[in-house]
């Protein structure tokens, strides 16, 4: 690992998936996707970022209902989803696994099938989180990619299978295989994930840190002090 935080690396990986997008919304408890979206916005001023739970100056004047309505109209082209479990079919589970209860499905059941670019994000990369088959399907859909604490996978629409594109510094192809519960393909150009550039880190630690702190105070303190 270089002189950067893991969260900064992951935000850079996610930000590189946002090219050409017009509008990303960020749901509950997603500080790294929010960081990625603000980082991307620095390179594309027309890119709109809606923090659904933004505490001050929230752009939604009819609450989360408006977010789902504008997704239904096609005005939202990027959303991030996670899961207590994610499987090789790209289904996600936010409800229950192994007798344990998780918070619930939030808006995922609705958003996953209708938002054109859904990015799956789950920092914990283990056989506990990445499973052959989820215990409960909160939502299914066609994702653009899956980003974890160890790797970046793309989604092959025709084969309905993930493909490993890169593993992050500190991990390896073998480490990813050993910690992934579902089967997947590997890219012929499989490589180590590109590290954050100095310029990206500078933007993250200044402008983006200030944008994130009001809504994710614990996260901002942990990553940027």
């Amino acid at each position, binding site marked *: 690992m270089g002189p950067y935080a893991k969260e900064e690396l992951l935000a850079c990986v996610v930000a590189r998936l946002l090219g050409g997008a017009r509008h990303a919304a960020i749901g*509950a*408890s997603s*500080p790294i996707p929010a960081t990625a979206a603000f980082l991307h916005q620095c390179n594309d001023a027309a890119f709109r970022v809606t923090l659904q*739970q933004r*505490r*001050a100056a*929230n752009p*939604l*004047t*009819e*609450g*989360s*209902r*408006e977010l*789902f*309505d504008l997704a*239904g109209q096609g005005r939202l082209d990027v959303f991030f989803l996670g899961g207590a479990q994610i499987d090789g079919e790209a289904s996600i589970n*936010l*409800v229950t696994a192994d*007798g*344990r*209860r*998780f*918070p*619930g*499905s*939030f*808006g*995922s*059941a*609705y*958003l*996953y*099938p*209708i938002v054109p670019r859904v990015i799956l994000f789950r920092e914990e990369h283990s056989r506990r989180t990445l499973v052959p088959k989820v215990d*409960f*399907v*909160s*939502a*299914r*859909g066609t994702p653009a990619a899956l980003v974890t604490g160890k790797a970046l996978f793309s989604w092959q629409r025709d084969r309905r299978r993930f493909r490993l594109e890169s593993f992050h510094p500190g991990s390896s192809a073998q480490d990813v295989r050993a910690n992934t519960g579902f089967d997947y393909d590997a890219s012929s150009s499989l490589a180590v994930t590109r590290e954050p550039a100095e310029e990206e880190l500078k933007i993250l630690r200044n402008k983006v840190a200030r944008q994130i702190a009001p809504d*994710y*105070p*614990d*996260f901002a303190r942990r990553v940027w002090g």
Partner: protein
Amino acid sequence: MSALPSNRTSFLSGPEEIAAQIPDGALLALPPDYSLVAMEVVRALIRRKARSLRLLGVPILGLSADLLIGAGCVEEVETSAVSLGEAGLAPRFTEAVEKNLIKVKDATCPAIHSALQATEKGVPFMPLGGVLGSDLLKSRNDWREVENPLDEKSRILLVPALQPDVALFHARWADEAGNVWVGRRRELATTAHASKRTYVTFEEKRAGDMLEDELLAPGVISSIYVTGIAQADRGAWPLGVAGLYGIDDTHVSRYAKAAQTREGFRAYMDEWVLTPRKSFSPA
């Protein structure tokens, strides 16, 4: 669906009087932690030992639900999630579900909004995109997947109208006419429109009628929907009121840690809920 009333708002003495008017067993609609929660009434419900409440998260729940569940006030929860946000899982909800002490009707956010909008419009159901293919449908016998009547090649979900017995939330202002001002949290209006009764606590009372003020009127919920109101200083604490006071993140984290165990939860109750004066945060 029963016909909904046109109210003359009652001016009540405080959160305790609102809690006394919310009957045991009521279907009680509550907003998420970021959207004007009447926490002082939630604490008063616990003090009056409310029982068998059925909570409706519009569309998710957090601290309010975790407190009510931990205190034994809740029989069932219909919601899209229960979470304490950055502070993590809602510990009393999690344990109650894992031990089968409460029933959960799992939903997804826009299904709850749509079900309330159906009641708001006085129609029996609303169609909703997405959702098909989710296991949520397996446990929701009240939701129907049908052929789209306008296009037989596609299918669509219908969610039935949902009419809460009581809507409960907090507002920055109320006025002498019984109107309340919620600013941009206009999704609360849908909940009020769809509920048999709506109770609101407020920070400050304004003279006159806010509907006569062109700038305030768009953030107002008219008294026709409001059953009763009562003043509560910092009534959303430890949650926030935008523009007035923020969420007390330190307190919510402290709760999340304490409530990991039943003993910790009981100690929190003793300190912050069962002693009314302690429940007010220092301004």
